[in-house]
């Protein structure tokens, strides 16, 4: 058993590049889907039925489709429509589009729960729409939505593991190749599990420090 971990250690470069790819994918997807979620949230709350209805169909639709199936469709299905991407583009696109729906729904919940008074005071002070959003709405929204955004980021890290099916060289894929090359399944996959755990603990620590910041500023 110790010998098996020794083999994994000699393959650490592969495992670390998998970890790096998982991290890059997750960070890019988390930032992009958060920003797109911000753009989509006002649409969800729009007074125009056509706008809010379309946004709602997209968000609820994504929430009803398994991520793995969605990734398959983007990678294998879209070429039938003339869109042919490599596995990185497809994987990242799938992660971003899928999680944008979840981020938008999360932000909508936090937005609705915000107190009305500061926003009305901002309007009374003559803030422009953009300035109102940036200075009055956004800071408390981010602080209060912090934990849920953190949870969604952990979900993105776990979703990125599914992209191993389209041969994207992320952490699970790296563990799979080590296991098939040396036949050390337990050592290879348990190391991957610990690395995923470590990543998620880092995200949780980040969320907790944001929470403390929010507590201090209240």
């Amino acid at each position, binding site marked *: 058993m110790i010998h098996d971990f020794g083999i994994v250690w000699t393959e650490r470069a592969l495992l670390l590049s998998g970890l790096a790819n998982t991290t890059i994918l997750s960070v890019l997807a988390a930032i992009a889907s958060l920003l797109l979620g911000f753009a989509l949230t006002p649409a969800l709350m729009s007074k125009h039925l056509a706008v809010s209805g379309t946004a709602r169909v997209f968000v609820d639709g994504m929430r009803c489709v398994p991520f793995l*199936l969605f990734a398959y469709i983007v990678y294998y299905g879209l070429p039938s429509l003339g869109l042919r991407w490599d596995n990185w583009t497809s994987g990242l696109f799938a992660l971003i589009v899928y999680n944008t729906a979840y981020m938008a729904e999360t932000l909508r919940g936090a937005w609705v729960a915000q107190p009305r008074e500061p926003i009305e005071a901002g309007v009374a002070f003559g803030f422009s729409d953009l300035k109102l959003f940036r200075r009055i709405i956004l800071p408390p929204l981010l602080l209060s939505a912090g934990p849920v955004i953190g949870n969604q980021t952990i979900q993105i890290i776990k979703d990125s593991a599914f992209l191993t099916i389209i041969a994207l060289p992320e952490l699970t894929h790296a563990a799979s190749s080590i296991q098939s090359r040396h036949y050390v399944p337990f050592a290879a996959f348990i190391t991957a599990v610990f690395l995923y755990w470590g990543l998620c603990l880092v995200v949780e620590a980040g969320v907790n420090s944001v929470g403390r910041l929010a507590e201090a500023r209240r």
Partner: protein
Amino acid sequence: MSGGDIASIFQGAAVTITLSLIGILIGLPIGLGLALLRWANVPVIARIVAVYVSMLRATPLVTLLLLLFFALPNIGIPINPISAAITALVMNTSAFNCEVWRAALMNFPKDQYEAAQSVGMRASLRFRRIVLPQILRVSLPGLVNEMSLLIKVTPVLAVVGVVDITRAAVRIGAETYDPLPPFLVAIALYAPIVFALVALQRWIERRQSAAEAAA
């Protein structure tokens, strides 16, 4: 895509639904058991459960599944795709269920528990009559939410060769060189199942908040 192909996706649906149901039915009580071990603060074991749950919640199902499927035979435990799939689903969902149950247990009013103690109820009766009915109500939306998440991760089971909706669709796509139609059929099967659970969760939440408003 022929009629037979569609029929084989429906056969996959039966596998997906059966495995999900088994996962839910076994995962619910195990999650409750884990939550109770933490709630009762059993020395050492409570710590182990906390670490186990934290780790499983961070592990992608596909990684867990590959670990079980390849590593168990390696240490002498033979396992087929179906039992690996069920074990992985149960381990995964019970960790999440544990957190839902635990949140409800932590918010359970202590005075009721002490009142039951003072009228001489035994621990098992106390749990069955006083605690369980109330935490069940509080946990229900979270548990239903976890069920919809469980169904959404079942396509992963195809990776070890379980012929569920997704694997059937992938196979037809590979045979016909036109993957889009079978994938769309697959979505048409998953979406209503998940949507029904999401709608159920919303309905329970609405009903509970209406009941609270009336009280």
